[in-house]
């Protein structure tokens, strides 16, 4: 982090709703030009954190510097250097793509060429269509176009791909990576591990309002200290001490699904099957895989990113 420039510096942000603490003293920095991911399950405080950074919610405590400006005191200046795409926003449905871009462009002192922006976001065919008639992916690309209309340095994207089909997600990933190539800083929230892995230079994992890990995707997985995971269920309630199975480094269990982390897949599997036979238990849904960010999360919190 030596020569990296901190473009966002979050200092002890706290947000409470009554007795519930949605964000509990987050501290992190985002470097200029990186794609920074906030990963966590629903209700972890990702969106609340992001909304405090863009000035939509007032923090109860702490502050943050965004693009060199304090979000509690210089919000107007912050808004000039950031672009925002919010979760589940609707737009004026009766306006056309081109009209709404001109409208949002007018909210800022300056805006980039609207036709170029439309082309960049692959919306040229749809520029005269009303927003009402756009597909989910097109609407999301339009939402990102609106965030870019004033050429901001930092772009905040709140769950940009939630609810999109795989094709539309990949198109969006390309767009986000292109933004990074152009030197923009991108902060995004997601609860898809594959997405975080593909897009993000660094990931902050949040759970229950707290930041529980922050590193590159590769490092996070490496820190798990195991490269394989064995996932299975028993067909009935079983009284087995899974930690005693050979070569198991960690155990993650959730309801009736058990996950064993190991560096020696063969040893663990043999031992597991032997133990099961010995206790006359039947293994169901047995699968092995390399450890992923999801496992990092399960390991740290004992819960999955997406419940159910």
């Amino acid at each position, binding site marked *: 982090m030596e020569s990296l420039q901190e473009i966002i510096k979050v200092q002890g942000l706290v947000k409470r709703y009554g007795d519930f603490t949605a964000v509990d003293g987050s501290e992190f920095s985002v470097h200029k030009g990186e794609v920074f991911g906030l990963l966590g399950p629903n209700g972890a405080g990702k969106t609340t954190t992001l909304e405090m950074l863009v000035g939509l919610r007032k923090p109860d405590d702490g502050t943050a510097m965004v693009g060199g400006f304090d979000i509690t005191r210089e919000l107007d200046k912050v*808004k000039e250097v950031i672009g925002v795409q*919010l979760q*589940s*926003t609707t737009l*004026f449905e009766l306006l056309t793509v081109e009209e709404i871009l001109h409208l*949002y462009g*007018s*909210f*800022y*002192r300056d805006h980039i060429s609207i036709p170029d922006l439309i082309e960049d976001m692959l919306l040229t065919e749809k520029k005269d269509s009303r927003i009402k008639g756009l597909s989910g992916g097109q609407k999301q690309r339009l939402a990102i176009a609106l965030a870019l209309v004033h050429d901001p340095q930092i772009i905040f994207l709140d769950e940009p791909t939630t609810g999109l089909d795989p094709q539309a997600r990949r198109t969006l990933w390309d767009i986000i990576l292109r933004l990074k190539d152009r030197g923009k800083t991108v902060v995004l929230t997601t609860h898809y591990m594959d997405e975080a892995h593909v897009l993000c230079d660094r990931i902050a994992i949040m759970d229950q309002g707290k930041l529980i890990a922050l590193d590159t995707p590769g490092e996070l997985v490496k820190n798990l200290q195991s490269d394989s995971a064995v996932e299975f269920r028993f067909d009935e309630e079983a009284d087995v001490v899974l930690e005693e199975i050979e070569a198991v480094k960690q155990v993650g269990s959730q309801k009736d699904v058990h996950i064993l982390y190991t560096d020696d897949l063969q040893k663990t599997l043999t031992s597991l099957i032997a133990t099961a036979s010995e206790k006359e238990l039947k293994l169901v849904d047995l699968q092995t895989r390399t450890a992923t960010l999801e496992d990092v999360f399960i390991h740290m919190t004992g819960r999955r990113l997406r419940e159910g």
Partner: protein
Amino acid sequence: MRAYYQLTLAQLRIFLRNRQVLFWTLAFPIFLMIMLGSFLGNGNGISLTVAVVDQDKSEQSKVLVEELKKNKAISIEKSSDEKDMLQQLKDGDLQLVVTIPEGYGKSVGAGGNAEPFKLPVYYNETNLTVSQVGLQLVNNAVDTISKKQVDYKPAVVTDSKGVEALNLRYIDFLVPGIVAMMIMSNNMNGVAGQISSWRERGILRRMQGTTLKASTFIAAQITARFMLNGLQAMIVLGVAWAVFGIEVRGSWLTVIAFVTLGTLAFMAIGFIIAGIAKTPESAGPIAGFLSFPMLFLGGVFFPIKDMPEFLQPIVQILPIAHLSHALRETMNVGASFMNLGMEAVILGCWLVGAFIAASFTFKWE
């Protein structure tokens, strides 16, 4: 400034593309005006049915009945059953009952300095306005007879000349009321509904994430609505002119000034409702709760004078009462803006007060 222009343009586009809303907000007042205007438009407002119970049946009593018949506003119903007539009066089928008791002819015929004959006239206190007019008309008839009897030569007479311009029909009364109603509902209900639904859908929230100022947003909203309402008011006035021959007797500038004041005042109230309403679903009933009483108490369809006494203080502070009154005075009588200073001041107070309240209740989300 660019944001203001773009937002106004966007709002006008939204209005024009929302054909259904556009059609019905215009169709309703026009439909109402044509319906009410065709049914009631040509009446002179009050019709009286007076029952005469002639128990005397003398020459003189016939003269009295003839005298009453001369007045075109009165339709006479002759009867001999006083009780039945009084019951009808109570039921509201009749407005007055005049009984000519036995001995009337003799008493009047005797003339001279005897005690004046007392003619019983029954009326229903619950319908005071109409009764008063009726009593006045009967008095006139009786007065004429009395004067004839004593060979009275008046020293001064009034020379009443009906001025055609002020021969007001119900439709003349109705049209300014309809315009006021349209201004109220389009602005108050319109703003409340739209802003609360935009808030619910996160449209306002997204704009809050930009450098756009709330004041610019509100100013553009007001401008666009004002343009649309001005246009709608003109269309309604145009239809009124084409169908009923209604014209604006006063200055158009005064009409425009009051349309402006009314639009702004009701829009401000709409912003308050939008601020209070937690969901778009609750904005409708709240706006309805305010607009319905105003519709019936505010002098839109019936003159405020007809309202019961105890409601008068409430009626007098309703903004719509002053808007409809001011429009009526301008259109019907040709009053100048200066003559309507009171109405302008009261609407102005509503406007300022409501905008202050609205600025405290306005929320982006």
